[in-house]
């Protein structure tokens, strides 16, 4: 279940056990993802299919790097909806995505805290 939200082993492998690199990419996600999600919301509100596809693709790019399988899967659903100009249940899928991302955030925050207190650092 935990691996669905974030696959820690895969993430550790990807950063090569480098806590500073991990902290850096988490911070990038925290800085950039709110804007991407806000743009996605706007695209859905205005039925901008290309905008939805692009923002969902962009967010998925971040989520894939954290091996956040469920969230990236939901982002892909929205990306496909955008590509196919399919607005059926889009709001619902978007809500699911927000929920998945909200589940991911505390995990990443916890990781950041552990990195900042090196004695307790272990992924």
């Amino acid at each position, binding site marked *: 279940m935990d691996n669905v939200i974030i696959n820690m082993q*895969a993430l550790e*492998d*990807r*950063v*090569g056990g*480098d806590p500073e*690199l991990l902290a*850096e*990419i988490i911070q*990038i*996600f925290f800085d*950039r993802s709110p804007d991407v999600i806000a743009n996605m919301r706007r695209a859905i509100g205005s039925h901008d299919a290309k905008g939805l596809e*692009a923002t969902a*693709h*962009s967010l*998925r*790019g*971040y989520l*894939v*790097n954290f*091996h956040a399988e469920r969230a*990236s899967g939901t982002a*892909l659903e929205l990306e496909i909806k955008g590509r196919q100009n399919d607005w059926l249940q889009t709001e619902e899928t978007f809500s699911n995505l927000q929920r998945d991302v909200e589940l991911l955030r505390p995990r990443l925050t916890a990781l950041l805290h552990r990195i900042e207190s090196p004695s307790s650092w272990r992924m």
Partner: protein
Amino acid sequence: MGVTKPIRVLLIEDNPVDVRLMQADFRKFGSGEFDLTAVEHLSEAIRFLNNNSIDVILLDLFLQDAAGLETLSRVRKAAPEVPVVVLTGLDDEAQALQAMKTGAQDYLIKGNINSRVLFRVIRYAIERKQGEIERRVLEQRLMQGEKLAAVGTLAAGVAHNFNNALMVVLGHSNFLLEQMKGDDRNKLHVEGIKKASERAALLTRQLLLFSRKQAPESAILSLNKLVLDMQMLLESTLGEGIEFELKLAPELAQIKGDPSQIGQVVMNLVMNAAGAMKDSGKLTIETANGANREVVLRVSDTGCGMSPEVCAHIFDPFFTTKGLAVASGLGLSTVYGIVQQHGGNIEVSSKPDFGSTFLVTLPAFGSAKPDSSNDSNATILVVADEENSLRTHLDTIAETTQYTVLKADNWPEAVEMGRAHGRPIALLIADALTPGVMRQHLLKQLAGQHPEMAIIYISGPEARRMAANGVIPEGTHLAQAKLTPEGLLRHVKGALKKR
């Protein structure tokens, strides 16, 4: 250990996490081996590619200013020779495969990347692209080679038919000349026609030699004569601003080989020199006797020269510095092959901006310093057309004696042979019926070159008339028209003794 250049990588990616992760991969595990540049937008990437050399591109297909396969096609248009690795998500693999069909060399799935996979894919992509480029170049050169072969066939066909037509022109010219009286005011014009036809016939013969449509043969030949035979063709290859100089050794030893192939060696070296000089310069062809019973051919130009790196590859098949549109890359490798087949050697020395010299050495045939004082191994030059029985008689004589027999079909050829032959000609045998414009003049030229030369004119009414008119030099030995080989040998010995 040699210092190798780092592989220059351009990462086109707008996700900052992906960029950061790959930067870390390159910094930690590929330091020194790779040189990474990352850009976020396609427009920025294209600007960069227009101004920089890159060895490999890592490309995210979805960027803010381009999406999908269009991204790839725009990158390939900007850098067609650079390998591309597409970056894709697990769920976009179908598109990645599509990208490979349209020119990408490989793809990487985001989330499954690590430094080991990343570097391996980059190296393979570069190798694959190099393979593709080499294959394409080879295909183009093969087509070029086939085109050249077709041109050769066409040239040979045209030359053959053209030569037949020229023979008709020559025949009619001769006929008209025979009918004309000495003071006929049209005689000059007919002689002009004949002279031009003879020149054209010489050119077509050279064209046949060059196109190698003549059966390969092994003959004893004079490199000097071969160069002189080709002189007109060689000069026509060079631009007007190029000075052409021949420095032919007077006593050059003969070589054994295929005249058409040796002719191609000379032709290709001259064409190469012409290409190096473009509009102005000097081309020198030199022959000499080498120190170790060899004949040396030196072709020098004052052209652009070559760097040591270029020199190292100059004989490689398909190597060219001129581009495929103008060169096959086979000229000098053909030269190398022919020289090797003849047991010879070729070397090149060159300096950028100062020119190049190609030095060909071929084994000498027979004595390099022939002794001309002894009549028993004298050189006899015969001027008679191919069908003439004189030539077969002399072949018979040559089999049982040590005489060297040179055979010329006509007077201009005789003069060239006389000039090119490396040793004195002791005896000239001419059939009075052998036609030739300015024969008297040419005979004088030959006699001037070989002051000790005795002359036998095979007699007939024509020769007797010429002798009476003073056309034939004094002291010329007149032999009867119908001779046996034994009879001819007696005349030869007699004429040589009288010298």
